């Protein structure tokens, strides 16, 4: 990085750190929390949160509720976990019934949550970061209190806050480097038998006991060598879902753990089988408390 702007480092020299080793650099935008809270869907399973930003922002939503194993495969986990948070809940999920899946979206005015279930609680984050074409954004100077550093070629006095690499006006989403990590899960080969078990399933799960004492905002990714040995995909991941052949990586968290499960199914009729596979899971735990 050139010596313009502000950068910080946690335990190394800012003069020698590479950009990705810095804890913050005003050269790069960070997700800035504009608004956060908990809302409940109405009787039709819908709720709207007005943000008034005048542009379409990025966001994140966690569904709140209970986690119970939903697949027909037995012997995985018969428990129900309460006070659980599910991230990015679209597509089939191994711990929540399909009718409770959610579509979340934002417009220039509001965040919308549409769920198959009524009276369900959601924790939402609306970021002061753009989710629309960047030249379309109405510029607005939102005040000169605190500390802010703009991007190159952007006037810090007149640019909108989305053009700030750093601003003290909003809480920055920061992750806990020491709590984040990776591990692997393995499932054996699976092939349908014509008569006795034409649609077999298999599953396992990983519990990360995070020790945060509260349910934390988290991100998780997986790499599946049966799909690609170089490509990471965000969890929840519905993988390759040819008819009758399904591969799902699902996740949720509570005050004790982050659980990531992996479930696969195949069908004799398709002639497709799963090879024995080991996937790698990486997770980032943020200090953000989902309860607040």
């Amino acid at each position, binding site marked *: 990085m050139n010596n313009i702007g502000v950068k910080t480092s946690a335990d190394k020299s800012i003069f020698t750190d590479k950009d990705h080793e810095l804890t913050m650099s005003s050269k790069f935008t960070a997700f800035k929390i504009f608004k956060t809270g908990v809302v409940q869907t109405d009787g039709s399973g819908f709720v709207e949160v007005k943000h008034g930003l005048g542009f379409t922002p990025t966001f994140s939503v966690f569904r709140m509720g209970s986690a119970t194993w939903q697949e027909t495969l037995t012997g995985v986990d018969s428990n129900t976990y309460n006070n659980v948070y599910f991230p990015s809940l679209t*597509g089939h999920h191994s711990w929540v019934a399909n009718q409770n899946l959610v579509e979340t979206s934002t417009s220039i005015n509001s965040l919308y949550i549409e769920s198959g279930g009524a009276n369900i609680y959601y924790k939402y984050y609306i970021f002061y970061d753009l989710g629309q074409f960047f030249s379309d954004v109405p510029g607005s100077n939102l005040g000169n209190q605190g500390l802010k550093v703009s991007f190159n070629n952007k006037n810090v006095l007149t640019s909108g806050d989305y053009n700030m690499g750093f601003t003290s006006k909003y809480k920055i989403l920061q992750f806990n480097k020491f709590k984040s990590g990776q591990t692997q899960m393995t499932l054996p080969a699976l092939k349908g038998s014509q008569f006795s078990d034409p649609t077999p399933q*298999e599953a396992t799960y990983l519990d990360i006991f995070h020790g945060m004492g509260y349910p934390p905002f988290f991100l998780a990714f997986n790499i599946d060598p049966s799909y690609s040995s170089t490509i990471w995909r965000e969890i929840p991941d519905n993988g390759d879902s040819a008819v009758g052949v399904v591969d799902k990586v699902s996740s949720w968290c509570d005050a004790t753990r982050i659980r990531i499960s992996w479930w696969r199914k195949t069908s004799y009729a398709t002639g497709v089988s799963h090879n024995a596979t080991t996937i790698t899971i*990486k997770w980032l735990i943020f200090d953000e408390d989902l309860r607040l």
Partner: protein
Amino acid sequence: MANELEWDIVNYLDTWDSSAGGNGSIKAGDGADSAVRYRNITIAQGTSIYSAVFKFIVDAKGAGSGTARTLVYGINEDNTADFGGDPLGRPKTSASTTYNITPPAIGERVDCTVTSQVQAIINRAGWVSGNALGFIINNNSSDANVWIKDNFGAVPDTYLSILLSANPTFTPTPISTDSKPKSVKVSYGIKYSKPHKSVLNATEADIYFSSGKPTLKAKFFGMRTMTNETASLVVHQLGYNPIYTGYGKPSTLLYKLPKFSGSFFVSYIEADKSEARAYSTNVINIFYYIFIDDLNL
């Protein structure tokens, strides 16, 4: 059970029931001798057989009480022919199974292990993958009017199930791991707190920023209109796998990705060490944030 290779009876000429005078059924017990044949056994010569089970589907049974006692042999031939004529005199394997049956309800199944018989046939020098193999069921002093019968025609009829290796557990033991302890708070660097909260004693929740904790730093962000099923978002060439996130916008609403169901479209983003790509079932705008932060923590 999963991973089993299974073969059904595909032709009535692959069944023989001495009590019925020939083809069309197989019977175990009460004075009957039977034979059954399975075609196109796609197992290479000499392959080790972990288990083979003959799964008798009961279509009818005798009214007597007691036990149907039989002995089950393999037909010791390289590629046994169909039962256009009486097959009961064909050579038999030395291996046999004592198959004593208390007849169950109609529609249920009674299994008979024939691993040694199948192994003996597969081991024959003249065996070739795709050949047919068969079994002879000899009555062995069954109780009067105690028998079970499978009439050819249902799917499946009595079928043969083979495993070439032991099945693993399909619900492996879950893994658990503890995160490392939190780092000790230090009093250097930069931090600022929520308005009206003292930065000196603010809780973690009220700290808006701390230079001691990493921030996701977006190096590449922008929009790409999907015109094909897969599109390159950015060739980042970072040389490592970056953290990323993205959104899809078919019209005026922006949806968080990955999105695997629901209205409008299915879409997700993926990234490797040089490129981030998007996949979508529809023409939409993808808004992406590729962070400079390395997934290899």
